[in-house]
């Protein structure tokens, strides 16, 4: 019975996975944004210096895309957390009614 309520085929399991996925998306956005503009300058000397330093993903950074993805992740996370809250509230009510 409990497997049906919390197991891989349950709604709570799918929502928990969704929350984990959104959290990973958030971490990857944070990593990209924190690696943006890895130098105080964009001149030739800074480019050479940046080449000597540890490589970063700054060249692949796109602030607008990241901010759009951030908004999307936030809304998904909020929806998933609300649905999970409702699912647990339903389970809680069912448990209380039958005890």
């Amino acid at each position: 019975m409990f497997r049906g309520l919390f197991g891989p085929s349950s709604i709570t399991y799918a929502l928990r996975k969704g929350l984990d996925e959104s959290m990973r998306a958030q971490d990857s956005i944070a990593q990209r944004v924190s690696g943006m503009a890895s130098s105080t300058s964009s001149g030739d000397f800074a480019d050479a210096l940046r080449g000597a330093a540890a490589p970063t993903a700054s060249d692949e950074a796109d602030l607008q895309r990241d901010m759009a993805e951030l908004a999307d992740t936030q809304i998904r996370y909020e929806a998933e957390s609300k649905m999970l809250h409702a699912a647990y509230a339903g389970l809680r009510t069912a448990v209380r009614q039958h005890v």
Partner: protein
Amino acid sequence: MSSPSPIPSRPVRELMPSLRMSAEGMAAQMKFIEIISENIANAQTTRTADGTPYQRQVAVTGRDPETGEMVLRVAADPTPGRLVYDPGHPDANADGFVEYPNVEITHELVDLMVARRIHEANATVFQAAKSMLRHALEI
């Protein structure tokens, strides 16, 4: 070039790695702003402690491949400064030219704007992570 030094940041408990990464990103941009302000403050310094004109500083960040920690390097830009003919200047050379620092105020201001915007972006991501954490606590 100075040896890479870890960006100082307050320890943030790893509830969400994105909080730590955004905090590091903000700390890096604050350091950039410090370097830029130092460059602007010394844009007219024709004599430093060693008798030479001020040299523009450039900061670069990267992640340590072993620890994954964000590190900051600061180096002096070796580009020669501009020469201005001013024989009455106390730092003029034998030909009457004064070497000014290789700091371009317009470049520094553009770099300052970029640093400010990236700092804002990191702060936005931090706020988003915080809000997600709050929603998680309400489940």
